[in-house]
């Protein structure tokens, strides 16, 4: 099979479709026993058993009867975790950065609330198998660019069509909150005239954003009142569930003043808000805590913006949020290396976040933030059987993920990378 796949790979036109086998469409009854089970939402179970059938977890514990006909996997020496969730990624929307024909992340223009990631996900992208074989089973695929970038989709990294992959769409509306782009990253008062010039573009962007949200609010009211037939406006229509508080807005902002402005903007329109990036979040703990909003931190393996920022600024934020009882999750904002999500989380643990919290930040916390904790994020009866089997802590690089189940279907561990490895590791001279 692998050889066949490779031959196909060689024969297919450039960037067409991955030939890695997709999910098999079989939701078998499976029992993994004698394993160390990490349910995430409850204590670790040594020598435990987990059973799932029809794509749903039916039992987790030490005293579990295995249904007749179940496929039994011996988990001796192995660990079982829920699949990991990246809260911000562009997997599915991009193949090769420098080849524009393969990039669908950023629409033209600044205001694209009607752009939907869910319709542009390529189920056969090579990035998908590469990502999931390291235990990252779900990503929020996020549109980029402009001011209102569009609507993200929470997808599972298995499926034959985009609808089969989409778990939730829209997951959120994404706003790249306007920032003082050209201003130097210092906080000393600037010459008044220069400051004015710099803020001109910023003010204009902010006005456009505010006008759009005002229009959307008016549009929502008029639609609800039903007083007269409206010419449909897809742009404003996309914002209706947002201004009505039914769909969250992810505010992408990093500097303290931009985060503050984004929060005030959200207050003004009574938006359900999630902060993303938030490099300076530690300076705004009371503001964030008071509003009870979640924060998506990351990429963690990234550089602080100011040269006098502490070297560990981004490694330390998660601990600070945890200590202050603020809900958070960790994201990569990557595509090709979304597979490294667990190491972004581990880097927070290296700087004081408890290890269990780092694991939660890529499992149950994102599931809660995205409103899918009834299905994902932990190993509990009734949840989707999205399960990874490892030989240790998945947040450690040296750990190997040996099996992946997504919604009960066992996923091949092949990827573009494993196949190329097999093809060349023993190449004859």
């Amino acid at each position, binding site marked *: 099979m692998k050889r066949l796949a490779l031959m196909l790979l060689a024969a297919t036109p450039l*960037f067409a479709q991955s030939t890695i086998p997709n999910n098999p469409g079989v939701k078998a009854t499976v029992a993994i026993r004698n394993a160390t089970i990490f349910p995430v939402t409850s204590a670790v179970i040594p020598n435990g058993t987990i059973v799932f059938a029809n794509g749903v977890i039916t039992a987790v514990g030490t005293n579990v009867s295995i249904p007749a006909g179940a496929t039994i996997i011996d988990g001796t020496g192995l660990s079982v975790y829920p699949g990991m969730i990246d809260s911000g990624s562009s997997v599915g929307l991009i*193949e*090769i*950065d*420098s*080849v524009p024909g393969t990039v669908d992340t950023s629409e033209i223009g600044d205001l694209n609330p009607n752009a939907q990631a869910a319709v542009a996900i390529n189920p056969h992208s*090579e*990035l998908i198998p590469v990502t999931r074989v390291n235990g990252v089973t779900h990503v929020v695929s996020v549109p980029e660019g402009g001011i209102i970038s569009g609507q993200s989709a929470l997808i599972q990294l298995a499926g034959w069509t985009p609808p089969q992959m989409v778990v939730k769409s829209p997951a959120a509306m994404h706003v790249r909150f306007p920032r003082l782009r050209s201003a130097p990253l210092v*906080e*000393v*008062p600037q010459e008044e005239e220069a400051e004015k010039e710099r803020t001109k573009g910023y003010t204009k962007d902010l006005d456009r954003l505010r006008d759009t949200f005002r229009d959307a609010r008016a549009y929502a009211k008029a639609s609800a009142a039903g007083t007269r037939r409206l010419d449909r406006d897809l742009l404003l229509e996309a914002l209706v569930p947002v201004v009505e508080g039914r769909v969250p807005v992810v505010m992408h902002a990093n500097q303290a003043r931009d985060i503050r402005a984004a929060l005030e903007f959200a207050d003004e329109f009574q938006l359900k808000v999630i902060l993303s990036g938030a490099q300076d979040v530690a300076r705004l703990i009371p503001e964030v805590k008071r509003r009870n909003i979640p924060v998506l931190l990351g990429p963690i*393996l*990234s*550089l602080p913006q100011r*040269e*006098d920022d*502490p*070297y*560990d600024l981004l*490694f330390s934020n998660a601990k600070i949020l945890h200590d202050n009882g603020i809900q958070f999750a960790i994201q990569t904002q990557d*595509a*090709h*290396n979304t*597979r*490294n999500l*667990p*190491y972004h989380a*581990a*880097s927070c*643990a*290296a*700087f004081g976040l408890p*290890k269990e919290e780092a694991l939660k930040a890529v499992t149950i916390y994102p599931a809660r933030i995205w409103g899918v904790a009834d299905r994902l994020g932990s190993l509990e009866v009734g949840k989707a059987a999205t399960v990874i089997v490892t030989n240790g802590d998945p*947040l*450690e*690089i*040296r*750990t*190997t993920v040996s099996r992946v189940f997504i919604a009960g279907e066992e996923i091949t561990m092949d990827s*573009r*990378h494993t196949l*190329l*490895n097999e093809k*060349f*590791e023993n*190449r004859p*001279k």
Partner: protein
Amino acid sequence: MKRVLLALVITLSVNAQERVTLIRNATILTVTNGTIERGSVLIRGGKIAAVGTNVTAPANARVIDATGKFVLPGIIDTHSHTAVEGSVNEVSLPNTGMVRIADALTDDDISAYRQLAGGTTMALILHGSANAIGGQSQIVKWKWGRPVHEWLVDGAPRTIKFALGENPKSANFRPPPGMQRQYPSTRMGVEEVVRKSFIDARDYLARRDEYEAKRKRGEAAIPPRRDLLMETMADILTGRIDVHAHCYRADEIVMLLRLADEQGFRIRELQHVLEGYKVAHEIAAHGAGAGTFIDWWGYKHEAYDAIPYNVAIMTRHGVLTSVNSDSDELARHLNHDAAKAMKYGGLTEEEALRTCTINGAKQLRLDHRVGSIEVGKDADLAIWNGHPLSTYSRVDTTFIEGEVYFDREQDLVRREELRREKEERLKKEKDAAAAEKKEKAK
């Protein structure tokens, strides 16, 4: 910040020659001689004076108790653009081998300090890859707080950057309006640029030899006009400059190795070399080293076949392989890349550790001075609070030549001082601005 650091370093510099430091009771990852549990490292005069379980220190030694901690040689990054003032590319010609990156280094790039905080102590600073031959590189140590001329490693080999593939053929670069596309624009052209440079250099050498011969014979002779580029190319041919070549695809790797064989010089290190795994036999046969990032892929077409097993496959084929960064960010955690060489392809722990330490030192031909914990080598090392191949570990203290250039405890103290100083200065500025406004209003 910088001033504070500077002050610290200067204090430490007093009597650097005599100062003795003992790091005791740590797990010493020597890299070349295995692991020593509950071991000690004695540092004297900037060099490693003793390593082992039974090391005693003189009474005046500074003793660091490293119980439960790990000591790793300073990480060596053979692909850096840190501390370069302005652009890394002299883009005007396809061959700019005459320019030197050492002429454009600064000592105020905070990235150097951040890399120390990740245990990285040495780097090869390279030009960019816009030209087939980009310019002469520089080996440095991140002696943050010292003037930049002290960062340059004395007696380090001279090095030059070559580049193949998409970048020198300007595949992803559209010239601004009014500017012509620069030759070359294919891999054929890139090969021709490199080949012609060496053929010209041979002519140059021949003219010089001819002149010298005439002069020796006492004949009247006019010296050939000096050409700094041709001298550079000639120095490569005569083995005085090591070539580090940026490359991606298997075909261009083979092309360069054959060209080098034909011209009679050796490629010291293939840089990036993302498809090195496809031609590992050929690389090993030539004797080139390979420095790569382990899992970046797909950012351009020539990186679409990059696989994280590259390091393991090349290593298994006998290629001297290192992990390097090409990034101010990645340079802070090359230990992660080393760990990935175990994950992808199953290198042993020692093999993995070599990829970020001694292998880079060998590629830079400085392994007699750095890259492992051995008596007589420079005391460039870091104390880690856990095993450096664990994602949960971080660096506590980093030494270069026995001096502390990063210390987490001191960093925490200093950042608080800095915060207070900044607050005070901001207040002063604001007060002054308010007073001035008041004055104007009057």
